[in-house]
């Protein structure tokens, strides 16, 4: 599969790939529907036709639409029409989709029973001598049955040792023990740590965030058997939950020069961090770029970058999209709910 070709076609795509990509709270649109209204190109009515609803993300899935649209047309014919088409005698009632809670009687449950006992994909073909057969909806899938290929091997009970080599999970903090420190002791310890950090010029949560737990401090306390004095003596604490797999332990923060390169690369390659790394910053692990990206979005320079590159800025939506207004018109007056779907301050 030619990954690079598909990537380039992705970045050509106007909407879903990059520019209106909803990242971490920048959703102006609560649903796909609202997002679709942003873009006048493309006919989204076709989307729901194929069973693969993820396919809208990519331009070359129109192929999928072509393949399934024939089936979809057949799916919309009545059973009688279909069977006449294929030379069967029409039986009783049509099989109904499960959306309708009514069970349509024996023939539908018989048809379903057929699908349960059908060991394998029931879309695989017709059986000419089965009067009740009707092609299933194109979006339907069946659970596959084969003990080797699909089902799990259920272990016998009581035959295993529980020591299965999991003693290596790193314990950072244990709240359940015979003599846990009280909440007061813990809170005062954490307060003391905030002070300690201040005197050592380390970053601390802003005032009013005393509820925040300090992972490293708690771990130090745990490793000193909940002895708060001993734990404080062991300051400064190692950064105990550092992401050492994705970020090199000796990685430096991004310099100004690097930030510049990063922003240029975003403009040039889009959010393809592996590509950005390969082309401009090969000494960085991809994880470092991703970590930086999510931090950078919170900074003022992100806003500056956005203003400089308006084609990346999603169109600002009113608090409720036109779709909801339409539904409201149908349903009568409503009070505008305060939701979290409105534009976040990141956009401002």
């Amino acid at each position: 599969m030619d990954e690079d070709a598909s990537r380039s076609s992705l970045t050509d795509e106007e909407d879903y790939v990059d520019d209106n990509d909803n990242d971490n709270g920048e959703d102006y649109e609560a649903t796909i529907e609202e997002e679709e209204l942003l873009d006048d190109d493309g006919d989204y009515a076709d989307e729901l036709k194929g069973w693969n609803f993820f396919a809208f993300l990519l331009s070359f899935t129109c192929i999928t639409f072509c393949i399934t649209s024939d089936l979809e047309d057949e799916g919309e014919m009545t059973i009688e029409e279909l069977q006449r088409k294929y030379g069967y005698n029409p039986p009783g009632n049509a099989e109904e989709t499960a959306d309708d809670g009514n069970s349509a009687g024996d023939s539908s449950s018989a048809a379903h029973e057929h699908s349960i006992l059908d060991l394998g994909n029931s879309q695989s073909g017709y059986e000419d001598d089965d009067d009740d057969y009707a092609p299933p909806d194109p979006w339907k899938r069946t659970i596959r049955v084969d003990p080797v290929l699909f089902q799990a091997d259920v272990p016998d009970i009581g035959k295993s040792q529980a020591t299965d080599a999991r003693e290596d999970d790193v314990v950072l903090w244990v709240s359940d023990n015979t003599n846990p420190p009280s909440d007061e002791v813990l809170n005062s310890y954490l307060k003391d740590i905030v002070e300690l950090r201040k005197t050592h010029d380390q970053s601390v949560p802003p005032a009013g965030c005393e509820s925040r737990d300090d992972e490293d401090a708690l771990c130090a306390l745990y490793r000193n058997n909940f002895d708060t004095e001993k734990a404080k003596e062991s300051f400064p604490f190692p950064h105990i939950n550092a992401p050492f797999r994705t970020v090199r332990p000796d990685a430096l923060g991004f310099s100004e020069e690097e930030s510049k390169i990063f922003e240029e690369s975003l403009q040039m390659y889009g959010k393809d961090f592996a590509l950005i790394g390969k082309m401009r910053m090969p000494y960085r692990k991809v994880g470092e770029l991703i970590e930086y990206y999510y931090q950078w979005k919170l900074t003022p320079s992100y806003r500056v970058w956005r203003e400089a590159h308006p084609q990346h800025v999603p169109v600002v939506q009113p608090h409720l999209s036109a779709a909801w207004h339409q539904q409201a018109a149908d349903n009568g007056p409503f009070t505008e709910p305060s939701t979290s779907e409105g534009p976040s301050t990141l956009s401002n």
Partner: protein
Amino acid sequence: MVSPAPLRDQSKRRVCYYYDTNVGNYYYGPGHVMKPHRIRMANELILSYGLYQNLSIYRPLPASFEAMTTFHSDEYITFLRDAKIDNLNSFGASKGKFSQNNDDCPLFDGLYEFCQLSCGGSLAAAIKLNKKKTDIAINWMGGLHHAKKSESSGFCYTNDIVVGILELLKFHKRVLYVDIDIHHGDGVEEAFFDTNRVMTVSFHRFGNFFPGTGDIKDVGIYNGKLYSVNVPLSDGITDESYQKIFVPVMEKVMEMFDPQAVVLQCGADSLYGDRLGKFNLSLRGHGACAEFFRKYDVPLMMVGGGGYTPRNVARCWAYETSIAVGIEVPNELPFNNYYEYFGPDYKLHIEPSKVLKNDNSDQKLHELQKEIYENLSQLDKVPSVQMQPLENDTLPVLEFEDIARDEENPDVRLPMSIMDSCQHNDADFYDDENGGDDHRNEANGRLSTDS
């Protein structure tokens, strides 16, 4: 008739939390809706709310090749481990062999590691529950319920849930799996479709919706017949409607199946405002499902899953963590490293839509319930412990422990599940078989060896 376990008092549960900070640094690719960063945002809220103090925190070991192949085929895990974009052909990786849709499940940097962390968390959670060292175990890195034995699907590559359940099955005769993701839990259902030791129950959107399985008529096959339960729902379901069907179905399931452990997949795409879903649940309606199981005195594993509006995913899983520890957190979000993402309201709870039409009428829900009840009542009722003599295959855990204790070879270390229940004699030189080196019980160790 087996009555549900007595309601335990609503206060303390031991809760273990599995998280690895690397998880937020994996990226599926430009334009992809699945963003592992949401897990980091959830963790950030949990930290900022001060919930860490009430959890036991673990960084899980990444799952090994052997661990993942307890479910998946060797060939498939080898592919995940070794495939790079330029050597796909050497795996014969034509479209469809290891993935129905290579765009849903792209190869990204660190993919194998990501899978190892996800599975590692669920596996560690299961082992902890097996050892009875915790009441609730949480792994928000997991819940990837679409992955199949040899195939990735729906953004899921390895099925950490199946791996975790297989571990639970070593010590629990019956495990219940409940899936409240908006998408049908097909990977887990398929894995256990033919067995009566795992009951899979899924509440999902059905009808021209991914993955296309989850018909109410799918009840399982062979020994597993009647041990798969599917609740097909329509768009716009509200908190109230959801509980109207969830509670009766789950009460019946608990009664008839009487699981010894429960795994709850908390996919957050069933919330209102999700990028891919059109349900109308708020955090309260979603979280009520977690609260339901907390009432029962049964070991519980909570895992993540779908959720494509990251700020709401973070809210949901932070809230459900607070439910697990039994602490009410304020609606005002605490300041945190990603605070700006939670604007403009900066609140924990989300308001469901007042205009989204609920296509699930009470009547439809009632009919679903009726059909499900009919199926469940055909289950062989699980005999209560007191009413039947012990057979060879019931309560083997008890037997195993007793026998092992009696027959112990002093040179062989006994399994942890037995050691945990052994009392130590203060006269012993070491407080336990670990030679006084068990750092989990260091406090205890100190006390006895100090004397």
